[in-house]
Protein backbone atom coordinates (compact mmCIF):
# COMPACT_ATOMS: atom_id res chain seq x y z
CA UNK A 1 0.00 0.00 0.00
CA UNK A 2 1.28 3.38 -0.88
CA UNK A 3 0.58 6.11 1.60
CA UNK A 4 -1.25 9.13 0.35
CA UNK A 5 -0.45 12.57 1.58
CA UNK A 6 -3.09 15.21 1.82
CA UNK A 7 -2.66 17.96 -0.78
CA UNK A 8 -0.59 20.84 0.46
CA UNK A 9 -2.67 23.82 1.49
CA UNK A 10 -2.37 26.82 -0.82
CA UNK A 11 0.19 29.40 0.27
CA UNK A 12 -1.25 32.29 2.26
CA UNK A 13 -2.01 35.39 0.28
CA UNK A 14 0.37 38.31 0.46
CA UNK A 15 -0.91 41.54 1.92
CA UNK A 16 -0.05 44.46 -0.32
CA UNK A 17 -0.43 48.00 0.90
CA UNK A 18 -0.96 51.45 -0.54
CA UNK A 19 0.50 54.76 0.52
CA UNK A 20 -1.50 56.51 3.27
CA UNK A 21 -2.20 59.44 0.96
CA UNK A 22 -2.52 59.66 -2.83
CA UNK A 23 0.50 60.67 -4.86
CA UNK A 24 -1.83 62.27 -7.44
CA UNK A 25 -5.35 63.65 -7.02
CA UNK A 26 -7.43 64.80 -9.98
CA UNK A 27 -10.71 66.58 -9.34
CA UNK A 28 -11.51 68.02 -12.72
CA UNK A 29 -13.39 71.27 -12.35
CA UNK A 30 -11.25 73.14 -14.83
CA UNK A 31 -12.84 75.94 -16.78
CA UNK A 32 -13.33 73.93 -19.95
CA UNK A 33 -14.86 70.67 -18.86
CA UNK A 34 -16.22 70.94 -15.32
CA UNK A 35 -16.04 68.39 -12.50
CA UNK A 36 -15.78 64.65 -12.94
CA UNK A 37 -19.21 63.06 -12.56
CA UNK A 38 -19.29 59.67 -14.28
CA UNK A 39 -15.79 58.30 -14.55
CA UNK A 40 -15.90 55.23 -16.77
CA UNK A 41 -12.19 54.51 -16.59
CA UNK A 42 -8.86 55.98 -15.53
CA UNK A 43 -5.37 54.77 -16.25
CA UNK A 44 -1.76 55.87 -16.31
CA UNK A 45 -0.10 56.64 -19.62
CA UNK A 46 3.49 55.83 -20.56
CA UNK A 47 4.73 59.35 -19.73
CA UNK A 48 3.08 59.34 -16.30
CA UNK A 49 0.04 61.36 -17.34
CA UNK A 50 -3.38 60.16 -16.24
CA UNK A 51 -6.18 59.51 -18.74
CA UNK A 52 -9.75 59.75 -17.49
CA UNK A 53 -12.77 58.54 -19.46
CA UNK A 54 -15.49 60.92 -18.30
CA UNK A 55 -19.09 59.97 -19.03
CA UNK A 56 -20.27 63.38 -17.87
CA UNK A 57 -18.46 65.18 -20.67
CA UNK A 58 -18.49 62.18 -23.04
CA UNK A 59 -14.79 62.29 -23.66
CA UNK A 60 -11.29 61.42 -22.55
CA UNK A 61 -9.36 63.87 -20.42
CA UNK A 62 -5.61 63.88 -20.05
CA UNK A 63 -3.90 65.25 -16.94
CA UNK A 64 -0.14 65.74 -16.69
CA UNK A 65 1.91 67.72 -14.22
CA UNK A 66 2.96 71.07 -15.63
CA UNK A 67 0.67 70.83 -18.67
CA UNK A 68 -2.83 72.18 -19.31
CA UNK A 69 -5.52 69.46 -19.24
CA UNK A 70 -6.19 67.83 -22.60
CA UNK A 71 -9.60 66.71 -23.83
CA UNK A 72 -10.93 64.81 -26.80
CA UNK A 73 -14.39 63.59 -27.63
CA UNK A 74 -17.49 65.49 -26.61
CA UNK A 75 -21.16 64.80 -27.04
CA UNK A 76 -22.35 64.25 -30.60
CA UNK A 77 -22.57 61.97 -33.59
CA UNK A 78 -19.74 63.33 -35.70
CA UNK A 79 -16.26 61.84 -36.14
CA UNK A 80 -14.46 61.80 -32.82
CA UNK A 81 -17.63 62.60 -30.89
CA UNK A 82 -19.46 60.27 -28.53
CA UNK A 83 -23.17 59.88 -27.84
CA UNK A 84 -22.93 57.22 -25.13
CA UNK A 85 -19.59 56.40 -23.51
CA UNK A 86 -20.40 52.77 -22.70
CA UNK A 87 -16.93 51.23 -22.27
CA UNK A 88 -13.31 52.31 -22.51
CA UNK A 89 -10.11 50.32 -22.76
CA UNK A 90 -6.57 51.15 -23.75
CA UNK A 91 -3.67 49.75 -25.73
CA UNK A 92 -0.62 51.56 -24.47
CA UNK A 93 -1.37 55.23 -25.00
CA UNK A 94 -4.29 54.57 -27.33
CA UNK A 95 -7.78 54.77 -25.87
CA UNK A 96 -10.54 52.58 -27.26
CA UNK A 97 -14.10 53.82 -26.72
CA UNK A 98 -17.26 51.84 -27.41
CA UNK A 99 -20.24 54.07 -28.10
CA UNK A 100 -23.29 51.99 -27.17
CA UNK A 101 -25.72 54.34 -28.90
CA UNK A 102 -23.86 54.74 -32.20
CA UNK A 103 -22.58 51.15 -32.08
CA UNK A 104 -19.02 52.01 -32.96
CA UNK A 105 -15.48 51.91 -31.64
CA UNK A 106 -13.33 55.04 -31.75
CA UNK A 107 -9.59 55.04 -31.18
CA UNK A 108 -7.84 58.10 -29.75
CA UNK A 109 -4.12 58.74 -29.38
CA UNK A 110 -3.49 60.32 -25.97
CA UNK A 111 -0.25 62.19 -26.48
CA UNK A 112 0.22 65.82 -25.43
CA UNK A 113 -2.16 66.73 -28.27
CA UNK A 114 -4.94 64.09 -28.15
CA UNK A 115 -6.32 63.18 -31.55
CA UNK A 116 -8.70 60.71 -33.12
CA UNK A 117 -7.13 57.81 -34.97
CA UNK A 118 -9.98 55.77 -36.43
CA UNK A 119 -13.61 54.70 -36.21
CA UNK A 120 -14.89 51.15 -36.56
CA UNK A 121 -18.56 50.24 -36.89
CA UNK A 122 -19.60 47.28 -34.74
CA UNK A 123 -21.76 45.05 -36.94
CA UNK A 124 -22.27 41.52 -35.59
CA UNK A 125 -24.26 39.38 -38.00
CA UNK A 126 -26.18 37.33 -35.41
CA UNK A 127 -29.33 38.69 -33.78
CA UNK A 128 -28.16 38.51 -30.17
CA UNK A 129 -24.89 40.26 -30.93
CA UNK A 130 -26.60 42.87 -33.05
CA UNK A 131 -29.44 43.68 -30.65
CA UNK A 132 -27.84 43.22 -27.24
CA UNK A 133 -24.08 42.96 -27.63
CA UNK A 134 -21.68 45.55 -26.23
CA UNK A 135 -17.91 45.60 -26.70
CA UNK A 136 -16.21 45.38 -23.31
CA UNK A 137 -12.66 44.32 -24.06
CA UNK A 138 -10.06 43.18 -26.55
CA UNK A 139 -7.62 40.28 -26.73
CA UNK A 140 -4.05 40.69 -27.95
CA UNK A 141 -4.97 38.91 -31.19
CA UNK A 142 -7.51 41.65 -31.90
CA UNK A 143 -10.70 39.77 -31.15
CA UNK A 144 -13.34 41.86 -29.40
CA UNK A 145 -14.92 40.77 -26.13
CA UNK A 146 -18.72 40.98 -26.26
CA UNK A 147 -21.15 41.08 -23.34
CA UNK A 148 -24.84 40.70 -24.11
CA UNK A 149 -27.73 40.91 -21.69
CA UNK A 150 -31.13 40.06 -23.14
CA UNK A 151 -34.46 40.58 -21.42
CA UNK A 152 -36.26 39.31 -18.31
CA UNK A 153 -39.47 37.31 -18.57
CA UNK A 154 -42.28 39.71 -17.54
CA UNK A 155 -44.69 36.78 -17.19
CA UNK A 156 -42.76 35.44 -14.15
CA UNK A 157 -43.37 37.62 -11.07
CA UNK A 158 -40.70 37.68 -8.41
CA UNK A 159 -36.93 37.53 -8.49
CA UNK A 160 -35.15 36.32 -11.62
CA UNK A 161 -31.87 36.70 -13.48
CA UNK A 162 -31.74 38.30 -16.90
CA UNK A 163 -29.83 35.93 -19.23
CA UNK A 164 -26.28 37.12 -19.93
CA UNK A 165 -23.83 36.01 -22.61
CA UNK A 166 -20.08 36.25 -23.16
CA UNK A 167 -18.57 36.01 -26.64
CA UNK A 168 -15.79 36.98 -29.02
CA UNK A 169 -16.13 38.97 -32.23
CA UNK A 170 -13.64 39.23 -35.07
CA UNK A 171 -11.14 42.09 -34.95
CA UNK A 172 -13.03 44.00 -37.65
CA UNK A 173 -16.18 43.78 -35.47
CA UNK A 174 -18.23 41.98 -38.11
CA UNK A 175 -19.53 38.45 -38.59
CA UNK A 176 -21.18 36.19 -36.03
CA UNK A 177 -20.23 36.39 -32.37
CA UNK A 178 -18.55 33.25 -31.08
CA UNK A 179 -20.57 32.81 -27.88
CA UNK A 180 -18.50 31.26 -25.09
CA UNK A 181 -21.05 31.02 -22.30
CA UNK A 182 -24.49 31.88 -21.01
CA UNK A 183 -24.39 33.12 -17.42
CA UNK A 184 -27.00 34.59 -15.09
CA UNK A 185 -26.72 38.36 -15.38
CA UNK A 186 -28.57 41.15 -13.62
CA UNK A 187 -30.94 40.13 -10.82
CA UNK A 188 -34.32 41.87 -11.06
CA UNK A 189 -37.71 41.62 -9.41
CA UNK A 190 -40.88 41.55 -11.51
CA UNK A 191 -43.76 43.24 -9.68
CA UNK A 192 -47.23 43.20 -11.30
CA UNK A 193 -49.05 46.50 -11.02
CA UNK A 194 -52.41 44.86 -10.31
CA UNK A 195 -53.96 45.69 -13.67
CA UNK A 196 -53.05 42.35 -15.15
CA UNK A 197 -51.43 44.01 -18.13
CA UNK A 198 -48.42 45.88 -16.81
CA UNK A 199 -45.45 45.00 -14.64
CA UNK A 200 -42.68 46.92 -12.95
CA UNK A 201 -39.13 45.63 -13.39
CA UNK A 202 -36.74 46.82 -10.67
CA UNK A 203 -33.24 45.85 -9.59
CA UNK A 204 -33.25 43.21 -6.88
CA UNK A 205 -32.01 43.97 -3.37
CA UNK A 206 -28.30 43.18 -2.95
CA UNK A 207 -28.09 42.98 -6.74
CA UNK A 208 -25.78 40.63 -8.60
CA UNK A 209 -24.78 40.68 -12.25
CA UNK A 210 -22.39 39.22 -14.80
CA UNK A 211 -18.85 40.63 -14.65
CA UNK A 212 -16.74 40.26 -17.81
CA UNK A 213 -13.22 41.47 -18.58
CA UNK A 214 -10.37 40.58 -20.92
CA UNK A 215 -6.62 40.41 -20.43
CA UNK A 216 -4.28 39.95 -23.42
CA UNK A 217 -4.85 36.22 -23.75
CA UNK A 218 -7.83 35.38 -21.55
CA UNK A 219 -11.46 36.18 -20.92
CA UNK A 220 -12.68 36.26 -17.31
CA UNK A 221 -16.32 36.11 -16.36
CA UNK A 222 -18.67 35.19 -13.54
CA UNK A 223 -21.83 36.15 -11.73
CA UNK A 224 -21.02 38.37 -8.75
CA UNK A 225 -23.17 36.17 -6.51
CA UNK A 226 -20.84 33.20 -6.94
CA UNK A 227 -17.52 32.41 -5.23
CA UNK A 228 -15.99 31.38 -8.56
CA UNK A 229 -14.83 33.03 -11.77
CA UNK A 230 -14.19 31.31 -15.09
CA UNK A 231 -10.94 31.98 -16.91
CA UNK A 232 -11.15 31.19 -20.62
CA UNK A 233 -7.71 30.84 -22.21
CA UNK A 234 -8.19 32.28 -25.67
CA UNK A 235 -5.09 30.60 -27.13
CA UNK A 236 -5.94 27.11 -25.87
CA UNK A 237 -9.73 27.53 -25.90
CA UNK A 238 -9.70 26.01 -22.42
CA UNK A 239 -11.70 26.97 -19.33
CA UNK A 240 -10.47 27.03 -15.75
CA UNK A 241 -12.61 27.69 -12.69
CA UNK A 242 -10.99 30.07 -10.24
CA UNK A 243 -12.19 29.77 -6.66
CA UNK A 244 -12.03 33.03 -4.76
CA UNK A 245 -10.44 32.91 -1.31
CA UNK A 246 -12.86 32.20 1.51
CA UNK A 247 -14.67 35.11 3.01
CA UNK A 248 -17.65 34.82 5.35
CA UNK A 249 -20.86 35.68 3.54
CA UNK A 250 -23.90 36.37 5.63
CA UNK A 251 -27.09 34.60 4.78
CA UNK A 252 -30.15 36.73 4.23
CA UNK A 253 -33.01 34.28 4.31
CA UNK A 254 -34.31 31.89 6.92
CA UNK A 255 -33.32 28.98 4.71
CA UNK A 256 -29.73 29.61 5.71
CA UNK A 257 -30.39 28.22 9.16
CA UNK A 258 -31.11 31.23 11.29
CA UNK A 259 -33.46 30.60 14.20
CA UNK A 260 -36.40 32.74 15.27
CA UNK A 261 -34.14 34.65 17.66
CA UNK A 262 -32.03 35.61 14.62
CA UNK A 263 -29.02 33.65 15.86
CA UNK A 264 -27.36 30.88 13.79
CA UNK A 265 -28.71 27.46 14.71
Amino acid at each position, binding site marked *: MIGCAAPAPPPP*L*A*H*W*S*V*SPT*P*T*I*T*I*AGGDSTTG*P*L*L*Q*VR*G*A*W*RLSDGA*IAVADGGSNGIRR*FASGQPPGFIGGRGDGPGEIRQLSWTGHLGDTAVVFDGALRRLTLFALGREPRMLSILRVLPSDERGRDFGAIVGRLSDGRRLVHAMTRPDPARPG*RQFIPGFVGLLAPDATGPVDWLAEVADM*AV*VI*VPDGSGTMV*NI*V*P*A*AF*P*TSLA*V*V*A*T*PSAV*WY*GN*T*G*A*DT*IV*RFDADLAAR*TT*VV*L*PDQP*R*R*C*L*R*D*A*CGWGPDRRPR
Partner: protein
Amino acid sequence: MDGARTADLAEARDALATALIEATYSPNNLPANLPAFETLVAAGTGEIWVERPAQRRGEPVQYVVLAQTGVPIARVQLPEGVRVTDAGRDYVVVVHRDEDGVETVRVYRLVRA
Protein backbone atom coordinates in the same frame (compact mmCIF):
# COMPACT_ATOMS: atom_id res chain seq x y z
CA MET B 1 -30.18 43.87 5.76
CA ASP B 2 -32.43 46.19 7.76
CA GLY B 3 -29.93 48.99 7.27
CA ALA B 4 -29.89 48.53 3.51
CA ARG B 5 -33.69 48.41 3.36
CA THR B 6 -34.03 51.54 5.48
CA ALA B 7 -31.51 53.39 3.34
CA ASP B 8 -33.29 52.44 0.14
CA LEU B 9 -36.69 53.42 1.51
CA ALA B 10 -35.32 56.80 2.54
CA GLU B 11 -34.66 57.58 -1.13
CA ALA B 12 -38.17 56.61 -2.31
CA ARG B 13 -39.94 59.57 -3.89
CA ASP B 14 -43.50 58.30 -3.96
CA ALA B 15 -45.81 55.49 -2.89
CA LEU B 16 -45.03 53.39 -5.95
CA ALA B 17 -41.28 53.57 -5.32
CA THR B 18 -41.86 52.60 -1.69
CA ALA B 19 -44.01 49.64 -2.68
CA LEU B 20 -41.43 48.44 -5.20
CA ILE B 21 -38.61 48.68 -2.68
CA GLU B 22 -40.68 46.77 -0.14
CA ALA B 23 -41.26 44.09 -2.79
CA THR B 24 -37.54 43.70 -3.42
CA TYR B 25 -36.94 43.09 0.29
CA SER B 26 -39.77 40.60 0.77
CA PRO B 27 -38.34 37.23 1.89
CA ASN B 28 -39.20 35.44 -1.34
CA ASN B 29 -37.29 38.00 -3.40
CA LEU B 30 -34.12 38.11 -1.33
CA PRO B 31 -31.02 36.21 -2.43
CA ALA B 32 -29.70 33.46 -0.18
CA ASN B 33 -26.39 35.26 0.35
CA LEU B 34 -24.76 38.60 -0.14
CA PRO B 35 -22.79 39.10 -3.38
CA ALA B 36 -19.39 37.41 -3.34
CA PHE B 37 -17.69 40.17 -5.30
CA GLU B 38 -18.59 43.51 -6.82
CA THR B 39 -16.56 43.73 -10.00
CA LEU B 40 -13.49 42.55 -11.91
CA VAL B 41 -10.73 44.89 -13.06
CA ALA B 42 -8.16 43.91 -15.66
CA ALA B 43 -4.94 45.64 -14.56
CA GLY B 44 -2.22 46.77 -16.91
CA THR B 45 -0.03 43.98 -15.52
CA GLY B 46 -2.46 41.31 -16.76
CA GLU B 47 -3.57 40.60 -13.21
CA ILE B 48 -7.22 40.64 -12.19
CA TRP B 49 -8.33 42.74 -9.25
CA VAL B 50 -11.50 41.39 -7.64
CA GLU B 51 -13.45 43.86 -5.52
CA ARG B 52 -14.98 42.28 -2.42
CA PRO B 53 -18.23 43.77 -1.10
CA ALA B 54 -18.04 45.79 2.09
CA GLN B 55 -19.66 44.18 5.10
CA ARG B 56 -20.80 47.57 6.36
CA ARG B 57 -21.03 51.06 4.93
CA GLY B 58 -18.01 53.22 5.57
CA GLU B 59 -15.56 50.32 5.71
CA PRO B 60 -12.29 50.17 3.78
CA VAL B 61 -12.51 48.47 0.40
CA GLN B 62 -10.96 45.03 0.02
CA TYR B 63 -9.54 43.56 -3.17
CA VAL B 64 -8.15 40.12 -3.99
CA VAL B 65 -5.56 40.05 -6.78
CA LEU B 66 -5.39 37.10 -9.17
CA ALA B 67 -2.27 36.32 -11.19
CA GLN B 68 -2.58 35.95 -14.96
CA THR B 69 -3.02 32.22 -14.39
CA GLY B 70 -5.96 32.81 -12.06
CA VAL B 71 -4.12 31.92 -8.85
CA PRO B 72 -4.99 34.30 -5.99
CA ILE B 73 -1.78 36.05 -4.95
CA ALA B 74 -2.61 38.98 -2.70
CA ARG B 75 -5.12 41.00 -0.73
CA VAL B 76 -5.17 44.78 -0.81
CA GLN B 77 -7.07 47.14 1.45
CA LEU B 78 -7.96 50.58 0.11
CA PRO B 79 -9.68 53.60 1.66
CA GLU B 80 -13.48 53.58 1.77
CA GLY B 81 -15.42 54.95 -1.15
CA VAL B 82 -12.92 54.08 -3.87
CA ARG B 83 -12.93 51.65 -6.77
CA VAL B 84 -9.87 50.50 -8.71
CA THR B 85 -9.65 51.30 -12.42
CA ASP B 86 -6.01 50.43 -13.18
CA ALA B 87 -2.96 49.01 -11.45
CA GLY B 88 0.69 48.62 -12.28
CA ARG B 89 3.70 47.15 -10.53
CA ASP B 90 3.97 50.02 -8.09
CA TYR B 91 0.81 52.08 -8.39
CA VAL B 92 -2.94 51.80 -8.34
CA VAL B 93 -5.44 54.21 -9.92
CA VAL B 94 -8.79 54.59 -8.19
CA VAL B 95 -11.94 56.68 -8.44
CA HIS B 96 -13.32 58.15 -5.22
CA ARG B 97 -16.94 59.25 -5.05
CA ASP B 98 -18.13 61.60 -2.33
CA GLU B 99 -21.59 61.98 -0.80
CA ASP B 100 -22.58 64.51 -3.45
CA GLY B 101 -21.63 62.17 -6.27
CA VAL B 102 -18.59 64.18 -7.29
CA GLU B 103 -15.72 61.97 -8.28
CA THR B 104 -11.97 62.38 -8.01
CA VAL B 105 -9.29 60.23 -9.55
CA ARG B 106 -6.46 59.29 -7.23
CA VAL B 107 -3.20 57.46 -7.70
CA TYR B 108 -1.65 55.62 -4.75
CA ARG B 109 1.76 54.04 -4.49
CA LEU B 110 1.41 50.26 -4.27
CA VAL B 111 3.79 48.17 -2.19
CA ARG B 112 3.90 44.46 -3.04
CA ALA B 113 5.34 43.12 0.17
